[in-house]
Structure formats: structure tokens, C-alpha cells
């Protein structure tokens, strides 16, 4: 055995590692495929979606079957139950088994998908098909599917957020109607709260930001906030909507028992997607939630009557009652797809064909994502569901704007919410300034 590595071996090892290092520079980057395929020829495309419940999968299959009937030459290979992380990986890698069309449950990634070029710009496709997105989709949905002029997604059903309330508990507490302003809401939440020992026999409302859908963006939708100014800088510290929203939420936390007591109670509650959801069981009397909750709550056969209303608005904006926060599922075409024209046929059918959109909305129990579908007589729904259709169609309803780094700015704002509600941050103005600076830094890093 030689005591030292022979020089030849050392030289070979160095050459090998150096060449591998150089190889790393050559293996990066991808080029998007052009839309050169002939959509009238026989072809098969891959469609990845995130739905997983049997009834939802059935609705997707029915939607795709309708498409295949209308386009007999295009076959769709459907892959369900895909998380955003898996979709992100597949969009990077490409290949025959990668998706040509994807749908994602979050609009937060649209900015990332557009700016990175992961999904193709659909504007030329819309133009080619003579479809005007501005007159096809509701305003918020039209906004959250594009970033910086690049429309890399189309809305595929929407979600509208409103207020669910326990009508039986309301009657018992002597409350005549659902609250329209936050002041009324606050008073009702206190009246509906029945304490038992260290916990609650009934909590009026779970204000904690970890209370499932009680995220900052869902609350703040009622304050119509401006997230970014004209220069693209965070407006969190400038727009008073944020301070008002945080102050209201913190006051609710304090008035309803304090952060520790509420968190302890929250730990005893069933999960968001199970039948033991605290609204179903009557443990929480009011719930901020999306339109899907109605079907889930009815399925749980609660021992009370369910009421539905738009979320309250600030006292000085009572005339705007009826608006809400809008988000939804999006569909797009992978930049790595070699069948983009065929893929567009599927996206166009799923997102703009009124009957297809209505049929899918009926199957999934989501809000339709086109203005025509929202008014379609074929739409079947519980009368209470109409509240969400109205919220979706309300011109004052808002959404959160796409950003180059996706929903990171929302995560940063949410973090301030956690720190403020728990008492870790006491100076809200300073917290908002720090949050705005962090958002700007994160965006600069992503560009």
C-alpha cells in the first residue's frame, strides 16, 4: 500500500470532479416547448389535479368524459390527488409522464408559475379562441390568474368565503340576525360564548389564526386591503386596513378568553375536514369558511339549523356588506408540454364552456368560475349556497394579488398575526413596518 495517493490517481480524481462540476453548469435550465402540435390529430394528454374525495374524483372524471366526447381525438390520462409540491417537481422535470395540464388548489403559486415560466402564457390561446377573459371571468378570478401581464392560468371553479352560524344558538342567545358589521359580530361572539371551567361549553367564534380558515387574508378581505403599492412595494404598513384587521382579531382573542385559553380549547377540537369539526358539533357557534363547508356540515347532520351570510364588514363600510374574499382552483398548461394546443382544448373546455363549468360546480359544490355559469339555470344548489354565488359575483369582493414569490408575503403577514395574537409582538405599527420590510426583501431575493 503506498503511503500517499499516487499523483496519477490524484490527477484523475481532480479531472473527474472538475468535469462533473462543469457538467452541473450544462445540466441546468429548460426550454419551453412551442405550441406546434396539431390538436385535430389523435393524441393523449396528461392532466394532474388535486381532488381526492370519491365524489370529487367522480366529478372530475365526468368533466373529462364530457371533454373526450366533444373532442374524440384527444384522450386524457387523469392523475388525481396531486399536491402542489408534486406538481412543482413534475413541472420542472417534464417528460412523457409529466402533466400537460395541471390544476392547483391554490392561487398563491400563480405568481411563481408565471414569473418562472413553469406554465405557458395563455393570452395567445385566449386570443386565438376569441375569448376575452375580462368579460368571461369574475374580476377577482381574472386578477388572480395572471401576473405582470402573463396569464399563465385560468380559473377552474372558485371559492368564496362567508360566515356560517348556528341559527339555533343565535335564537337561544336572543340574536335576531347574522351580524353585518364587525361590531355586531364582536357583540354576538361574546353573547354566544358559554364558558365551562377552563374551557367552553360553546365558543362564539374561534378567532385564532390557527383556527383553520381563519387566516389573515380571509379576515382582511372584508377590509379590502391594498397589499402592494404602485411601485410593487408592500403596503402592509401603509394601508390602515391591516392595522384595523389585526386590531379587531386581537380584541376578539382577548375578549373571548385570551390566547392561551383559546389555544388549549382548540387542541380539543376535531379537525377541519372531519365530521367532528367544531361547527358541526356545536362547539363553535360562528365559523369563517368557504362554500364547501355547507355540504360538509349538512352531511354531518348537526343538531341545529345552519345559517349562512356574508362575513361582516367594518362599521364605516356597512353599505359594502355582501362582499367577501375570493380564491379558487386554477388550471394551466405546462411549459414542458409538447402538446400545448391539445392541452389548451382541455383547459378551454374546463374553464370556459358554461355547461361544463356548471356541471363541474354541481359535482364539486364549488362556486362556478365564469360569469355565464354563475347565472346558469342549470346550476343546482341549496338556497343558502346562493350567498356564496352572490359573494363571488359581488364587484367589491377581493382577492390576494399574485407575487413573484407566490404566497410568501401572505405567510409573512400570517406570522405577524401569530406573534401579535400570542402577545409576542405588542407594538403593532412596528410589527407592520418590519413585516413590510421583510416582504420587500423576500421579493427582491426572488427576482
Amino acid at each position, binding site marked *: 500500500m503506498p503511503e500517499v495517493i499516487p499523483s496519477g490517481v490524484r490527477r484523475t480524481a481532480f479531472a473527474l470532479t472538475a468535469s462533473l462540476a462543469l457538467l452541473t453548469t450544462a445540466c441546468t*435550465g429548460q426550454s419551453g416547448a412551442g405550441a406546434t402540435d396539431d390538436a385535430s390529430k389523435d393524441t393523449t394528454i396528461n392532466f394532474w389535479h*388535486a381532488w381526492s374525495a370519491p365524489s370529487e374524483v367522480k366529478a372530475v372524471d365526468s368533466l373529462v368524459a364530457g371533454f373526450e366526447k366533444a373532442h374524440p381525438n384527444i384522450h386524457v390520462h387523469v392523475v388525481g390527488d396531486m399536491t*402542489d*409540491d408534486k406538481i412543482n417537481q413534475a413541472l420542472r422535470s417534464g417528460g412523457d409522464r409529466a402533466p400537460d395540464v395541471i390544476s392547483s388548489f391554490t392561487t398563491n403559486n400563480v405568481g*411563481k408559475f408565471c414569473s418562472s415560466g413553469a406554465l405557458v402564457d395563455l393570452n395567445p390561446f385566449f386570443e386565438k379562441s376569441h375569448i376575452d377573459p375580462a368579460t368571461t371571468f369574475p374580476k377577482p378570478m381574472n386578477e388572480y390568474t395572471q401576473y405582470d401581464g402573463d396569464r399563465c392560468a385560468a380559473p377552474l371553479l372558485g371559492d368564496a368565503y362567508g360566515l356560517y352560524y348556528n341559527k339555533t344558538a343565535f335564537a337561544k342567545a336572543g340574536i335576531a340576525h347574522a351580524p353585518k358589521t364587525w361590531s355586531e359580530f364582536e357583540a354576538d361572539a361574546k353573547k354566544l360564548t358559554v364558558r365551562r371551567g377552563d374551557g367552553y361549553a360553546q365558543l362564539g367564534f374561534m378567532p385564532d389564526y390557527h383556527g383553520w380558515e381563519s387566516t389573515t387574508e380571509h379576515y382582511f378581505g372584508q377590509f379590502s386591503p391594498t397589499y402592494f403599492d404602485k411601485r410593487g412595494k408592500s403596503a402592509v404598513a401603509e394601508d390602515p386596513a391591516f392595522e384595523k384587521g389585526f386590531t379587531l382579531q386581537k380584541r376578539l382573542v382577548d375578549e373571548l378568553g385570551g390566547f392561551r385559553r383559546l389555544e388549549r380549547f382548540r387542541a380539543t377540537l376535531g379537525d377541519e375536514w372531519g365530521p367532528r369539526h367544531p361547527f358541526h358539533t356545536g362547539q363553535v357557534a360562528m365559523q369563517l369558511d368557504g362554500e364547501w363547508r355547507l355540504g360538509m356540515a349538512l352531511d354531518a347532520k348537526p343538531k341545529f339549523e345552519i345559517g349562512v351570510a356574508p362575513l361582516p364588514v367594518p362599521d364605516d363600510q356597512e353599505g359594502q356588506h355582501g362582499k367577501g374574499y375570493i380564491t379558487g382552483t386554477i388550471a394551466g398548461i405546462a411549459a414542458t408540454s409538447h402538446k400545448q394546443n391539445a392541452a389548451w382544448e382541455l383547459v378551454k373546455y374546463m374553464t370556459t364552456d358554461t355547461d361544463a363549468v356548471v356541471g363541474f360546480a354541481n359535482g364539486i359544490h364549488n362556486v362556478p368560475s365564469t360569469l355565464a355559469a354563475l347565472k346558469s339555470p342549470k346550476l343546482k344548489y341549496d338556497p343558502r349556497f346562493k350567498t356564496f354565488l352572490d359573494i363571488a359575483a359581488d364587484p367589491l369582493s377581493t382577492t390576494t394579488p399574485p407575487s413573484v414569490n407566490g404566497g410568501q408575503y401572505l405567510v409573512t403577514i400570517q406570522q405577524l398575526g401569530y406573534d401579535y395574537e400570542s402577545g409576542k409582538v405588542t407594538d403593532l405599527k412596528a410589527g407592520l413596518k418590519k413585516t413590510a420590510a*421583510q416582504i420587500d426583501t423576500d421579493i427582491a*431575493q426572488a427576482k
Partner: protein
Amino acid sequence: MSTVTLASRRRRAALRTLAFMSPWLVGFAVFFAYPLLSTVYFSFMHYDGFAAPTWSGGQNWGYVFEHYPLFWPALRNTLWLVLVTVTLRVVFGLGVGLLITKVRTGTGVFRTLFYLPYLAPPVAATMAFAFLLNPGTGPVDSLLEKAGLPAPGWFSDPAWSKPALTLLALWGIGDLMVVFMAALLDVPREQYEAAELDGASRWQRFRYVTLPAISPIVMFAVVTGVIQAMQCYTQPLVAGKVASGVIQGAGVQFEPGYPDRSTLTLPQLVYNLGFQRFDYGSACVVALVLFVLSMAFTALLMRRRGGLIQAGD
């Protein structure tokens, strides 16, 4: 002529050496050198995984160290896990190993009882622990309350979340117990007999006979423990998600570390930055920090091994 022969002999020897080393060289290049060099390369690039990377100089380094709010809490948590959890795991594993070697009847039952938890998949084990330690409905806090003791918030309280993770790590001590048990049973009996004849107490027998004899195994346990702690990803992530009430559905955006960033670890940041935020450059910086820390800990332990491993071990 003789010079040429000598040169060709040397070349043949070098080639032969290279041929024998080639399996290792290929493995080293593919699984170590390439990923490491790539990581260094990308740490200086702006790369989102889609467009071609562009040079960004030290921007990613500056971002991670100065502006990424999760980095320092994650580093502190990771170091805490390395120092506290590894120490306790080694002490507890050795203690259980010692106890079981002393048990005369039902040894098999005890071995099985202590080894079984190790076989539980990390996600299932963490969810079971989150259920047991739930401050509202968990049996552990109910028992503590009945006994008149304070019931901690465990995974819901930033002050208790890391101790809760440590409890989870101690519960799955089975692997260390088996290794220590084998080492303890290997200590020559005559050394204990000689020590007893010399009047050594129980502690002195442990200190001067047992410990030197099993010191290589202790060293092994510490080094592998440090590596495990550095790679800790699944348990804190699952515990944080379960305690926060966030069910990771499609479209749900969850920042790891609940509660109050107390369960954040460096590997979580690599995933968060690289695969969720599309910021490969910054993810590579964190990965390199993790690499350097692992190397530093290992080097430190190897330098100190003289105190643990006796000559001839």
C-alpha cells in the same frame, strides 16, 4: 532503457491502483463530489429550477444570514437537538442497555418492549405522541392534572415542544439499546472480578471497566446521533402540523416550525426554500451550513476520541 521500464512500471502500478480504487472513485464522484460541488455552485447563483441559473454573487449568503427570519431559529433548534437530544439518547440508551443486561428473568420481554417503538414509522410515531401529549385531550396531561401536577402544552407550547421531541426520540431508543447491550455483554467478566477483588465500588466498576471497554460504541452512538439530529426533518414537521391543526391538503400553505418556530430545523429550511419557494440558491446555502456543521461536529468528536477510545480499541 531502465528509466523507461521504471516509468512504465510506475504507470502500470498507478493504473492498477486506479482500477482497484475505481468503484470508490465513482461512488465518491457521483454521490459526494458532484452534489457537493453543485451545492457550492448553486449557492452563488439565482436559480428557480426553471430558467437557467444566473450569477448572483453573495446575495444568497447575505439573504440567508441577514434577512431570512427562519435561519437563526432553525440553527438554534438544530444545535439544541444535537446537544441535548443526542446526550440524553446516549445516556438513556446506555442506561436501558445496562438495566436489561442485569435483568435475570423476562429479558426477552423487556428487550421487545424497548425495541418495538423503534420499529414504528416516524410519522405514525409522531402522530401517536401528538395524540398522547395533546394538552386538551391527551391522556398524559389528564394523568398529570389528576396527580396535581402542571400539565405542559407540549407540542403547542414553544417552551415544551423541543422537550416533547426529545421524549419522542428517547421512546425510540431501541436501536441504541441493542448496540449497547451487545457491547456490554462483550465486556470480559474477569475484568469485573479483578476490580471487585480490588474493592472497586459499583460506580468504579462502571467508570474504570465498563466505560473504557464500550467507549468505541459510545463514540459510534454519539457520531451517528449527531448525524441523525442534524438531519431531523420528519418528526418536528409532523408534530408542528398536527399541533397547529393544519391538515396539509393541496393548496394549504404551511410555514414549518409551529409553535413560534420552536420546531424548525435546518433540513426543513432546505425543503422550504428549494422546493416550496423555488429559491435553490438559498437552499444550497443552508445545505452547506448543515454540511459544515456536520463536518465540524464530527471532526471535534474525532479529535476528542482519545479521551473515549483507549489505545488498542
